[in-house]
């Protein structure tokens, strides 16, 4: 009895340690930034440009991720084929890549001297140091977060529901749109929130691949780094804004999309 109680104490201690470690930096940002500073930081045109650019580029990259990622994840979740686990591993690889490695990799692949650079150049596509380059970098680092969650969400959908839809004469595409996606919507939304948060916070790959110019490629994390040297309180205030936006995003998606009963039913 006392052994199990001691074990519980260890678990509680570990969770308390983890919680403190993970929340203290975020609490500090808000303690050091009064609400007045937070609001006044939004008067700064450089900050406003960075926020606008961050919202636009993350929205664009999330749109690409959802449109391409949803059917891709559905395939991984519902079909078995050779090399499936290899494909899953490759798709998840960017999750564990350091951002600097992602930046170098993007340059080596899509930069002017990269292996696909000539091809892009012939097509008249310039990504490096352009807003489009920011979207590419964000998509690269954030997509695995969505793919991983979406695949798990589709796997949790009851197979019989999908089969029933098909036997009732719905096509494969219709089944995905009308049955699978609604049933998996909570998991898809969680993946969307994670990917969005990751994209909003992206720094290293963006700086290396897209550079930093106000209004063109300077997203909020780059603007924060730029201020760190010259104006620490302003950097803190902008950080607080970013945390607030990311937090609000996570919360909104969690509140708006409730899990559906089918997704929770044992498969």
């Amino acid at each position, binding site marked *: 009895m006392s052994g199990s109680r001691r074990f519980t104490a260890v678990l509680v201690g570990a969770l308390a340690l983890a919680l403190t470690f993970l929340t203290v930096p975020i609490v500090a940002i808000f303690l050091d930034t009064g609400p007045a500073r937070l609001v006044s930081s939004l008067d700064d045109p450089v900050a406003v440009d960075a926020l606008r650019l961050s919202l636009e580029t993350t929205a664009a990259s999330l749109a690409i991720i959802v449109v391409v990622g949803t059917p891709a994840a559905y395939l991984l979740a519902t079909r078995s084929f050779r090399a499936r686990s290899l494909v899953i591993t490759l798709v998840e690889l960017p999750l564990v890549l350091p951002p600097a490695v992602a930046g170098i990799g993007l340059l080596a692949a899509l930069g002017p001297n990269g292996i696909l650079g000539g091809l892009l150049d012939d097509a008249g596509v310039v990504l490096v140091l352009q807003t489009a380059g920011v979207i590419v970098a964000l998509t690269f680092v954030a997509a695995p977060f969505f793919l991983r969650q979406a695949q798990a969400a589709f796997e949790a959908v009851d197979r019989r529901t999908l089969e029933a839809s098909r036997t009732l004469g719905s096509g494969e595409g219709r089944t995905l749109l009308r049955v699978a996606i609604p049933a998996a919507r909570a998991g898809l939304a969680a993946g969307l929130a994670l990917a969005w948060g990751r994209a909003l916070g992206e720094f290293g790959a963006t700086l290396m691949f897209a550079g930093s110019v106000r209004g063109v490629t300077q997203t909020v994390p780059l603007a924060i780094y730029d201020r*760190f*040297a010259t104006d620490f309180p302003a950097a803190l205030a902008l950080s607080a804004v970013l945390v607030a936006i990311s937090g609000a995003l996570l919360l909104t998606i969690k509140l708006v999309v409730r899990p559906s009963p089918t997704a929770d039913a044992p498969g």
Partner: protein
Amino acid sequence: MRAWFLGAALASGALAVAAGCGGGGGSELTVSAASSLTAAFTRYGAEFRAAHARFSFGGSDVLAAQIEQRARPDVFAAANTDYPEELHNRGLAGRPVPFATNRLVIAVPADQTSIRSVRDLARPGVTIAIGSASVPIGSYTRQVLLGLGGAENAAIMRNVATQEPDVAGIVGKLTQGAVDAGFTYVTDVDATQGQLRAIDLPSRLQPSVTYAATVLNGSNHRAQARAFIHGLVTGAGATALRQAGFGPPPK
């Protein structure tokens, strides 16, 4: 899923703590130095005997800001005299010692032939990398451009495709062919061993670029820190700096 994230976060936190605690004993000298000093200081560090020198290279502005946020290296070496002077005036560091000079140049990829002078940078369509306003390379560059006069300055600033946090970023964009030209120090071009080519600025535009180092107050290795800076002025450090293309400090 959540457990996986928590585990990863805890593990990386533990690793960071372990790394931070490493090498507490012995004589280890922590040196925060401007990004442009990377090659010269790395060579000097290998020959420095009084202590094991550990370097943190970055933009001088970011390193100075870290010190103001209570990061405490033993030595701070900046690509200007302003940042060490400021820390000295705030009582955070000792008197700055000028130890080297450098020259600003236009750096271009070695195979780039269409840019021959600063005027060519004003042509429409040319892409340029410069330092952000707070890092010394960026403020020297703005000084040069102001010397050119309004119209040319504005035309060149319009061609700026990226403002990098330190020289390493500018050199990276150049060697990757992401931009046509950039403003760097002549020593950065030398360090790329032929990948980049330097175009000299007219002498009337050349800013005076002086590097200064200082011992941080509160350093536990003051004697070794002073020895390190002394070696930069006369000694193995000065030799490494000359080999990398830095000039002697102003008299």
